[in-house]
């Protein structure tokens, strides 16, 4: 191969990598409407990336927090895709009508029942590459680093956010390709205990979110930075 095409090829690859590098994406962050969290995230939830959501207990708070973030992404989609895909192994136990609480149209969410973890990851990657979707949730037990990187690249290409909803009883991998790692559990009186355990190039944090009785609105009840430092 002559040297010039090689150089051109390398340059193209470099351009591709720089475009897909996390943190450098030109996509504007999605404001969450929670000043404390938006400030910690420097403007809002980053788009075009992979995020882990780890349940702190066996309740549904982590799934609820993922649904809340999805609802925000759809609402603030502007020019991007507004679709949502929720993938689980088999039919899963998500009850779609409850998604309306978080500003999602239950009938518009694509529910995917994957036959195996490998097919679930493949489907998530495909869905993340599609510009039609604002967010993709995958309920999965565990994820290796390579699969995580593939999902991260796919999300960067498609502009949506991929949420990995992991299981409470499995320790999360120490190394991960995800840009953010959340841990969410229930607190007294319908509150959520939300921790941002990891964020590329940013500081972790922890908050207690209070929820109004019926609406999708949330407010930060308390910011707890110390607990995240311990985690």
């Amino acid at each position, binding site marked *: 191969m002559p040297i010039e095409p090689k150089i051109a090829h390398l340059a193209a690859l470099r351009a591709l990598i720089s475009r897909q590098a996390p943190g450098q994406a030109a996509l504007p962050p999605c404001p969450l409407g929670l000043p404390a969290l938006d400030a910690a995230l420097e403007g809002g939830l980053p788009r075009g990336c992979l995020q882990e959501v780890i349940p702190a207990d066996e*309740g*549904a708070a982590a799934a609820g927090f993922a649904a809340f973030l999805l609802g925000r992404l759809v609402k603030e989609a502007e020019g991007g*895709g507004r679709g949502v895909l929720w993938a689980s192994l088999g039919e899963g*136990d998500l009850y779609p*009508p409850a998604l309306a609480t978080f500003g999602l149209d239950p009938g518009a969410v694509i529910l995917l029942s994957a036959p195996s973890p490998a097919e679930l990851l493949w489907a998530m990657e495909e869905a993340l590459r599609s510009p039609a979707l604002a967010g993709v949730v995958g309920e999965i037990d565990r994820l290796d680093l390579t699969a995580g990187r593939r999902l991260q690249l796919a999300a960067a290409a498609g502009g949506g956010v991929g949420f990995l909803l992991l299981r409470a009883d499995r320790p999360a991998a120490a190394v991960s390709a995800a840009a953010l790692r959340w841990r969410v559990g229930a607190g007294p*009186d319908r509150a959520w205990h939300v921790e941002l355990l990891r964020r590329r190039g940013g500081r972790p944090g922890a908050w207690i979110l209070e929820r109004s009785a019926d609406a999708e609105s949330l407010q930060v009840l308390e910011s707890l930075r110390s607990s995240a430092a311990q985690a």
Partner: protein
Amino acid sequence: MKRIVSLWLPSWATDRLHRKPDCPADRPVVTIAEVAGQLLIQAADALAGAEGIRPGFALADARALRPDLAVFPADPAGDAAALARLADWCSRYTPLVALDGGDGLWLDITGCAHLFGGEKALMSDLRHRLAGFGHDSRIAAADCPGAAWAAARFREAAQTVVEPEAARESLAPLPVAALRLPPVLTAELERLGLRRIGDLYPVARAALARRFGMLPGERLDQALGRIAEPISPRLPPPAFAVRQILAEPILHAEGLAAMLQRLLPRLCRELAEAGQGARRLELGCYRVDGRVAKLAVGTSRPSRDDAALIRLFAEKLERIDPGFGIEAMTLAAPHVEPLADLQLALARRRNETAKGAAGQEADQAPLIDRLGNRLGFARLARAEPRESHFPERAVKRMPAAFPAAAAKPASAWPAGPLPLRLFPRPEPVTAEAADEGDPPLSFLWRARRHRIRAAEGPARIEPEWWLGESGGPRDYWRLEDEAGLRFWLFGQSGSWYLHGLFA
């Protein structure tokens, strides 16, 4: 003017046996079946035929002629299935292939022969390939099925072309048996000295009908093409199909992808001219060993966007086993729906901008097609509300590929605080209740005790007896434990069940 090829496989059953490893090569081979308590020869190969052993002989008589006869049970079902497979393989020449009894095929090659270098070349190619598979064949082309049938079976040459409009002269010297008449009628005609088809030409039609019924006259007219005799193709020919004969057999998936990239735009042009879009595409790969590997993809809405369609195939091409090579490919759209240019332009624009609620469906269709073709469309669903008091029945999963005509209003969905997780089967829990009608004080779920701090309820749901529902009414409670976990529990006939979790 139609052109029909009749293909006759005189030793179909025994040729199939000869391909098997346990079949002796140096001994005559016959198949037998029990007919009226007697074992009769059903098929005999060339070696047996040379000894004078013919179908219809008693096995004992044949054994007397050749004691070393190799005898196999007849397998008419297997022979028929193999012939059907051969018919499918023959669709590499033309989509119109019909079965002709248990040992022959008809191919309508009208307008196809030039693709293979003319009728002679097409027939040589077919005979040559069949010989390669181990099948003896005789073949003829004529203007109508009757003439081709007669020429294939009763001309000396193994390969005959009855030129257009030449059936009358060509058939005249052939025996009347070439008219596809029952043996009784053939014998009767021969007894009266009407041995050749030509002998029937001068006979008055009325006299023939009086003596032998309508059949001989009808068969004669069919053989001479005076009345139409349509052949019924085994597979309905797709209205939209393109084919490609390959100079070199393809052995790899990359080669298949490259060929597909040439076939798809051709098919899409055909679809565009007719204003149609494909809902289903079938790729046929014709292997050199006579097998056909087929691959089908579906789309959730009509499409003729070759770039999008090729992606659907890309996932599956590696599943095709090319064997010793693929030498011809067909691409057909057996299921099409009208698709106007305007719709296509709109869909493209939506895909480019991905904007607005109306555009959402069009955006997601390519993704749903891609996921559905690999995982199965049944695995992609959208929820739809249903009229039911029972939470598990108030939602139905509908295929995502066929979206509802209109979005359901929010009021159609169940109201009130709803659990985000709903177990398909309520999980029985051991609960410690204070009194009848009170919520549990604590309960054991997944080996952990949850002490209840707050409870709301009960909300009673009566069984839907008109659905044959059994069991008592359910009393639902919303419970919060000391850690803040929120549960949806119900009591039914003294037992407690966990049905869901609130976010």
